[in-house]
């Protein structure tokens, strides 16, 4: 550890206050990360929540570069560096989010506006990255100057981060949007106070606090919706006096708003026969989430009888037992009540939505037949002990939109996987039906994938003649897809034909449907030379032996998804890009699956920016410091070769200390644990999303748990791992392999194995906290100049891993992600063997001395 500078307190870094300050800053930064994720989800789209993780890691990685540039100052005056980092971080947290929000960024590429949007998004992410950069610099400075107490500092970092995640979840669940950053600001103020020395710095703390309070008072951070977001249009109506927001609630599952206006008249799949009654409009995270009818009795909901959702009731003989999954505004409850349902179970995980419907829904739930369950749908289905439902309507999928032009492509949906639908089918009574209504799309994709998913779910239950169990019917607006436990019998066929006639519907598929009866009265495009529509064609192919060829030939990816890759809304196919470009020219992006393209772009940009901000400056700095201004690459290489030859000549025991080997081992070690750490974390977030139903909540839970438990691992690392640098990654790789086998097995790992899975994840997180501090401690002891490299390489690899994990998961599943993460840790194990065997070189540097100058 370096000697303190004049005026610096002796043993400054030994002060408990520094550890508390590190914990406070860690909590503040993680809180900012979670809050930013939720704000982006609310104000923009789901995909950007994942980009925040990349931005955070990039910021941390770039902080390593900053520390390398300021290395001398950091080592000479660590307390001052820590203090001023805290002050700057406080200013950044107050100012930069406001700058980012002021930028008119959008997720919808406007033709001709593409590069302007790219520029705006670049500025947005640079502004968002600032607090991570400054926070990372503070934490990195504390870590790299802590000497043998690096483990304590790292543990404080992890514990603080875990606490910050927990606080963030509480914030976004209970408080208004403009209050979400207050804890971060307060914690940074506390850190600055704890790190102060001298009266001048006290003044600095007071000025910071005053600045923050004034800014929050005069310019609160209210929601700023993207212009194409549903909530933005609602806000427009409000500003014109045509609507008013009557209520808002925060819930771990989302930010819920309820609006009232005489202009709201829409229901999904409203028939032409009569207009809808007055209604409220519900928005969750800024997106449309249904309507609440402003009625008091079921008699006033007559309009629901002519919707597509009424069709399944026509196929049921006796008063049915109904399960409504994901019901929001209560319209399907009114329908079930009108259809004389014997029992109506409603699943809605968002308690805030349930509360609003109770308050404003006109008593829709005030019926002894209605039972509310505020829990995750898959968890509820697991609790169903015996098949009992005559009708399960997956209301959560109702809607017209084709996945919002693909921006929803990265959203995970664990209900509409083969396993999820199989669970629904398993809860049906013998004559029961599972039904989903979605809008007609062009080209067809969601409704095709629904048929494919229903078919494979039926096959998973041992039903081989799925063609007899599938019904698909549509009108000019939407498609109702039904899967039945029993084959279509004569009675049900008669009821179906009667309903088709009375509701003026168009059949798409049912057993023994004649092609002549398809595609009228509402005509859609179909294969040339035929009278059928593409939906009928797709159902026919899926239900035939040509299924695989059909999946390959369809323009979009419509294969069913599974729990391992639960991306129902992703239809991307690489070959579609070429076709879209030929069809649309420069406007092809308006038709493309934007979610996947965003991901590829973010992966490329993150990697490039990481190299630019982190690796390149470090490389330049290392070259300049070692070689001197007049050195040439040739002279450096010649010196490195001479050193290597000398080391080899000393004997085989010294082979590990060659400069190239040590450098390579450092890169592989810290790069490997960076790749592996984020790969595992992303996989765990996916599993947690399946349990908890919300990606931000899941991210907070996983990030928090990994950091806290990992912090414990860091504290224990010196005792468990010591100088055996290879042991930490080896333990992680081993548990990851076991976890892979357990978490994504064919059995329902979300059920009985849940606690075993959680326990294994915690053990994994414990070991994941070990490699980094032991590696940094070893570097600090033997090659201190490599510490910034380690920090930077770890940061870049983590950034890349965040997006790369999603790419792999969407293509081949999360099991592959875990396998690759385990492989990365295995490589780090090998590198750890080399680093553990290396010895301190004379001069304390792995680089050769520059050639003597005349």
């Amino acid at each position, binding site marked *: 550890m370096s000697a303190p500078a004049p005026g610096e307190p002796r043993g400054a870094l030994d002060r408990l206050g520094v550890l508390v300050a590190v914990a406070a800053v860690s909590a503040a930064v993680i809180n900012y990360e979670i809050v930013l994720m939720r704000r982006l989800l609310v104000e923009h789209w789901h995909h950007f929540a994942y980009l925040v993780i990349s931005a955070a890691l990039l910021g941390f990685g770039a902080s390593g570069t900053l520390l390398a540039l300021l290395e001398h100052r950091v080592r000479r005056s660590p307390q001052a560096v820590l203090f001023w980092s805290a002050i700057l971080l406080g200013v950044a947290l107050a100012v930069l989010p406001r700058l980012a929000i002021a930028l008119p960024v959008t997720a919808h590429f406007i*033709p001709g506006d593409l590069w302007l949007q790219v520029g705006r998004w670049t500025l947005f992410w640079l502004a968002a990255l600032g607090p991570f950069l400054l926070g990372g610099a503070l934490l990195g400075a504390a870590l790299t100057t802590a000497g043998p107490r690096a483990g304590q500092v790292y543990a404080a970092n992890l514990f603080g981060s875990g606490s910050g995640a927990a606080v963030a979840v509480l914030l976004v669940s209970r408080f208004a949007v403009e209050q979400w950053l207050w804890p971060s600001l307060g914690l940074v103020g506390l850190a600055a106070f704890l790190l102060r020395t001298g009266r001048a710095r006290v003044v600095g703390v007071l000025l910071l606090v005053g600045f923050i309070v004034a800014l929050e008072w005069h310019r609160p951070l209210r929601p700023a919706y993207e212009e*194409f977001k549903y909530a933005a249009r609602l806000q427009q109506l409000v500003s014109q006096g045509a609507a008013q927001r009557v209520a808002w609630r925060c819930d771990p599952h989302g930010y819920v708003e309820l609006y009232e206006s005489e202009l709201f008249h829409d229901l999904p799949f409203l028939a032409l026969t009569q207009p809808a009654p007055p209604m409220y409009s519900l928005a969750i995270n800024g997106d449309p989430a249904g309507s609440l009818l402003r009625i008091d009795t079921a008699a006033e909901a007559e309009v629901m009888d002519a919707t597509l959702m009424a069709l399944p009731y026509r196929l049921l003989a006796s008063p049915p037992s109904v399960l409504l999954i994901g019901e929001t505004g209560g319209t399907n409850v009114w329908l079930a009540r009108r259809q004389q349902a014997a029992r109506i179970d409603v699943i809605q995980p968002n308690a805030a939505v349930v509360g609003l419907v109770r308050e404003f829904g006109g008593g829709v739930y005030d019926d002894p037949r209605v039972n509310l369950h505020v829990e995750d749908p898959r968890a509820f289905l697991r609790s169903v002990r015996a098949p009992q439902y005559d009708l399960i309507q997956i209301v959560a999928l109702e809607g017209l939109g084709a996945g919002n032009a693909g921006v929803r492509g990265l959203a995970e949906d664990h209900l509409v996987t083969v396993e999820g639908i199989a669970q629904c089918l398993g809860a049906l009574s013998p004559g029961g039906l599972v039904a989903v209504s979605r809008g007609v799309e062009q080209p067809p994709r969601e409704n095709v994938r629904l048929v494919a998913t229903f078919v494979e779910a039926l096959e998973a239950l041992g039903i081989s003649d799925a063609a007899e169990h599938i019904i698909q019917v549509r009108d000019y607006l939407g498609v109702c897809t039904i899967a039945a436990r029993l084959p279509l019998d004569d009675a049900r066929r008669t009821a179906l034909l009667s309903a088709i006639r009375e509701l003026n519907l168009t059949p798409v598929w049912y057993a023994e449907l004649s092609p002549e009866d398809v595609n009228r009265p509402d005509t859609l495009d179909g294969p*040339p030379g035929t009278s059928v529509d593409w939906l009928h064609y797709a159902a026919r192919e899926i239900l035939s032996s040509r299924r695989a060829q059909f999946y390959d030939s369809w323009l979009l990816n419509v294969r069913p998804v599974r729990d391992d890759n639960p991306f129902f809304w992703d239809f991307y196919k690489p070959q579609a890009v070429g*076709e879209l470009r030929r069809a649309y020219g420069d406007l092809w992006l308006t*038709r493309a699956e934007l979610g996947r393209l965003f991901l590829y772009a973010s992966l490329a940009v993150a990697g490039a920016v990481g190299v630019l901000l982190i690796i390149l400056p470090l490389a330049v700095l290392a070259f300049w410091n070692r070689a001197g201004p007049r050195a040439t690459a040739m002279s450096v290489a010649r010196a490195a070769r001479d050193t290597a030859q000398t080391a080899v000549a000393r004997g085989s025991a010294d082979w590990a200390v060659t400069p190239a080997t040590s450098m390579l081992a450092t890169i592989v070690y810290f790069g490997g644990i960076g790749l592996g750490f984020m790969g595992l974390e992303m996989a765990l977030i996916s599993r947690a999303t399946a349990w908890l139903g919300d990606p931000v909540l899941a991210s907070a839970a996983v990030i928090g748990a990994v950091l806290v438990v990992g912090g414990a691992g860091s504290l224990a690392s010196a005792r468990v791992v010591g100088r055996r640098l290879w042991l930490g990654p080896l333990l992680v790789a081993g548990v990851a392999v076991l976890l892979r086998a357990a978490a994504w097995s064919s059995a329902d790992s979300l059920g009985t194995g849940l606690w075993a899975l959680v326990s294994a994840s915690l053990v994994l997180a414990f070991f994941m906290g070990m490699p980094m501090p032991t590696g940094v401690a070893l570097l600090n002891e033997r090659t201190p100049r490599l510490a910034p490299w380690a920090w930077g390489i770890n940061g870049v690899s983590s950034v890349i891993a965040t997006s790369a994990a999603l790419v792999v998961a969407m293509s081949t599943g999360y099991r592959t992600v875990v396998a690759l993460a385990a492989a990365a840790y295995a490589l780090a194990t090998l590198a750890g063997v080399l680093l553990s065997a290396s010895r301190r070189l004379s001069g304390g540097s792995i680089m050769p001395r520059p050639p003597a100058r005349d």
Partner: protein
Amino acid sequence: MTTRLIGALLLLPLVSACTQAKDEPPADEATSTAPPSTTQPALATQPATAPAAALPPHVTLDADGRLQWPRPRMGERERERGRMVDTQIARGDRWRDAVRDERVLAALRAVPRHAFVPDSHRGNAYDDTPLPIGHGQTISQPYIVALMTELLAVKEGERVLEIGTGSGYQAAVLNELTPYVYSLEIIEPLCRQAAELLTRLGYTTVRVRCGDGYHGWPEEGPFDGIIVTCAAGHVPPPLWDQLKPGGRMVIPIGGTYETQRLVVLSKQSDGQRQSRNVLPVRFVPMTGRMQSP
């Protein structure tokens, strides 16, 4: 198959919008009490009790009993209009079918699109693209206007309702085919601007009303054709009610800010619906009506 499937996907960028929502009851629109004239905006003026069979002002019958009404002709930039029709509309390609109705093509050749766009975009008036017209709205791409007009299959003397006047261009094109054009616009400045422009240019039989298009124009219904130039989650039941049996409606259907479908609906003699999906389009939403997802 894939190629054919792609053949159904046509290039149709963002086109004209309806509107900022305003809570205006349909009957309480801005009107003047005087009958429309060449010096006044062609706003809705006739009392609801006017007999539908009576010829409106400026509409006469010639010796052969054929309707005659003002259809102004402007020679300025005529060649550009001709080229626009020949290259963008009358000539199809792999991704869009040609518009073949000669009456529609003649209407597009006649109506001066450049007069309906702001000065800043006059130079691009005949390009194959929508253009901004202020108030967050756009004038539709020429091909879309032509296609929707052809799909509406307007016969001379039929009554047509347009939802979303916007610049007034579509209304002018319709007016080339029939004198009985009724157009609703919810954004009042646009509404008045379009009404004044149409009158000034000489399209004096077009009647423009400021109001919410969701409820249609019941006093002047039923209509032989209804054309909607903004996306909707469903066909507004009031509009369907105002469509005559045998009538046609052309409307983009779909979610907001997404790819919608241009749909033609026909009302059968028994009131039942037949529909035909035409092609994917991208309209901004009928913001007067909040759309479900």
